[in-house]
C-alpha cells in the first residue's frame, strides 16, 4: 500500500526543500510565534518524523496564506502540503482549536444533510432583481450566517450580498440566487475534514448543474477558489466559469459601463472636491491563489478613490491573521494588529477588503479597549463601495 505521507511529500514537492529557511523568514505566523517554522515542519516530515508533526498543535498553525510559496526557491507547495497533513492528522483523531465554539464548523457540517431546507434568502427584498433562468449564478456563500454571528462586531454580511445584486442589476445582469446553496466547504477542507467537504461539494455541484447557468459570480474569494479549483480536484467540475465579482466587474466592457453610470450619478467636481483615499487588503485566495491583484484596484480607481498601498501589498500582502475559523489566538491578534498599524501608516481614510472574513477579522481585532485609537480605522467592503457609488 502506498504510504500516504510519502505521497504527500511527493505531490507537494517537499523532497525539493533546500532547507534555506526563506519560508520561515517570511511567514507571518513564525514572525509572531518562534515555535512555528514551516522549514522545520518540511524537514521533520521528509526525515520520517511525520507522526510528531501530525500530533502537534503546530500542524494547525499555518494560515495557508501562500506567502512562503511566493519566495520558496524550490516551489514547495507548503499550503497544500499542510492541508494534506491535516487530513491525515484528522484520521488519527486530531484537529485544530476551533474558535467561536465550533459554531461555524457546526453549521457547515449541518449543511451536508441532504434533507436540509434553509431560509437563507430573507435578505432578498426590495427592488433587487433575480431570475431562476439567468445564465449567471450569484453565489452568496455563508454571508447570511456570518451576518448573525458578527453583528456585534459591526459586520453587515447581508448588505454585501445585497450590494452584489445591486451592482449586477445596475449593469443589466439579473442573476440567479439559489435557496438551496450550501457552504462551499472551503474551511472544512483546509482544516482536513475532506469527507464533509465532499458531501457539500456533491450537493452543490448537483444544484449548480441543475441551473443551466454558464457562470458563477461570488463575493467571497474563498468560495471562488473552492468552486473553481478544489471542486474539480476533489469531486467534479461545475462546467461553469467561476469569477470573483471584482474580476467580473473589471472586464473592460463592464468597467466602462460602471464609469459611464458613475459619470451620470456623480456631482460635478468642485474646487473643494476631495477624492477619498483607501488602502487595499489583498485576500490570500484572491491574490496569491488566483492572481487577481489589479481588478479590485481598478474598481477603486473607477470610483475616484486614491489608493495608497501598504508596505506589504499584492504578492507580499499579509494575511488577515486567521484562516478556517481555527487557531485564532495571540498570534492571530498580533498579525492583525501589525497589519492594522501598517494600514494606518498609509494615511488612507479607509481599509478596503474584498473578503468578508478579512473584514470580520479586522473588526474583531479593532475591538480592543487597550489599543483603541492606535489601530482603529474604517473598514469597507469593496462591492458595497461600488454599489453605493452607483446609487
Amino acid at each position: 500500500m502506498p504510504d500516504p505521507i510519502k505521497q504527500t511529500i511527493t505531490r507537494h514537492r517537499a523532497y525539493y526543500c533546500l532547507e534555506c529557511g526563506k519560508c520561515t523568514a517570511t511567514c507571518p505566523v513564525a514572525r509572531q510565534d518562534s515555535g512555528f517554522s514551516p522549514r522545520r515542519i518540511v524537514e521533520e516530515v521528509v526525515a520520517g518524523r511525520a507522526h510528531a508533526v501530525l500530533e502537534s498543535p503546530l500542524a494547525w498553525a499555518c494560515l495557508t496564506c501562500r506567502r512562503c510559496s511566493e519566495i520558496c526557491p524550490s516551489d514547495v507547495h507548503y499550503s497544500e502540503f499542510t492541508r494534506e497533513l491535516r487530513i491525515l492528522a484528522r484520521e488519527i483523531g486530531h484537529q485544530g482549536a476551533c474558535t467561536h465554539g465550533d459554531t461555524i464548523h457546526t453549521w457547515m457540517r449541518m449543511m451536508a444533510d441532504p434533507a436540509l431546507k434553509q431560509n437563507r434568502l430573507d435578505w432578498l427584498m426590495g427592488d433587487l432583481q433575480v431570475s431562476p433562468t439567468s445564465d449567471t449564478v450569484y453565489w452568496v456563500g455563508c454571508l447570511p450566517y456570518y451576518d448573525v454571528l458578527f453583528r456585534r462586531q459591526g459586520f453587515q454580511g447581508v448588505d454585501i450580498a445585497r450590494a452584489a445584486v445591486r451592482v449586477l442589476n445596475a449593469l443589466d445582469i439579473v442573476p440567479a440566487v439559489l435557496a438551496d446553496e450550501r457552504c462551499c466547504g472551503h474551511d472544512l477542507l483546509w482544516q482536513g475534514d475532506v469527507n464533509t467537504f465532499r458531501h457539500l461539494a456533491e450537493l452543490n455541484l448537483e444544484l449548480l448543474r441543475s441551473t443551466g447557468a454558464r457562470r458563477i459570480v461570488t463575493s467571497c474569494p474563498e468560495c471562488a477558489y473552492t468552486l473553481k479549483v478544489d471542486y474539480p480536484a476533489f469531486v467534479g467540475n461545475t462546467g461553469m466559469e467561476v469569477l470573483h465579482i471584482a474580476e467580473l466587474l473589471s472586464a473592460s466592457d463592464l468597467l466602462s459601463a460602471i464609469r459611464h453610470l458613475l459619470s451620470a450619478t456623480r456631482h460635478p467636481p468642485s474646487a473643494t472636491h476631495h477624492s477619498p483615499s483607501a488602502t487595499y487588503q489583498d485576500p490570500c485566495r484572491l491574490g496569491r491563489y488566483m492572481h487577481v491583484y489589479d481588478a479590485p484596484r481598478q474598481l477603486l480607481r473607477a470610483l475616484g478613490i486614491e489608493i495608497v498601498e501598504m508596505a506589504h501589498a499584492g504578492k507580499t500582502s499579509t494575511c488577515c491573521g486567521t484562516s478556517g475559523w481555527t487557531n485564532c489566538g495571540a498570534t492571530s491578534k498580533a498579525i492583525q494588529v501589525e497589519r492594522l498599524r501598517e494600514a494606518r501608516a498609509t494615511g488612507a481614510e479607509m481599509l478596503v477588503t474584498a473578503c468578508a472574513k478579512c473584514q470580520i477579522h479586522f473588526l474583531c481585532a479593532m475591538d480592543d479597549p487597550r489599543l483603541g485609537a492606535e489601530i482603529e480605522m474604517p473598514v469597507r467592503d469593496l462591492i458595497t463601495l461600488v454599489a453605493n457609488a452607483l446609487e
Partner: protein
Amino acid sequence: MEKTETRVIVFTCNWNAYSSLEAAGVEGLSYPAGVYAVKVMCLGRLHPGLILKAFEQGADSVLLLGCPPGECHYGFGNRHAEEVFAEARALAHLLGIAEERLRLDWLDVGDGHAFVEKVTAFIEQLCSFQPSTLPPSH
C-alpha cells in the same frame, strides 16, 4: 419508521433550573423520557455553537432553562444567555429549524412541578407539528 420519542436537550443552569430538576426527582415526579438534561454552571456559559451542536447530534428541540431576570447568580449570565439565544435562533432559522424547536425560559429555585410543566408543555407544542418539520429519524 415511526418516531417513538421526541428528543429534547434541556440546558439547565446549576442554580435555579437544575435545583428544580432535582426537586422533581426527589418528589418522584415523572417527565417525558426523551428529555436529556445538560447542566451548565450558568446559561451564560452557552454559545450558539453548543445549541447548534445539539441539533446536529439529533435533538428534535432544545430548551434553555435558567434563572429569572435579575436573579442570575453571576449577575450578567442570563442577560448574556438572551443574546446567545437570539443568535442561535437566527442561525437555526437560516438552517430551516422551526422557531418552536428552540426556547429560552426560566425557573424559580427548587420548583419540581414547574420543571415538569415547562418541559411537558414544550414537548406538547412540538408534537402539534407536522412530522416533516422535524429532521429525519436518526
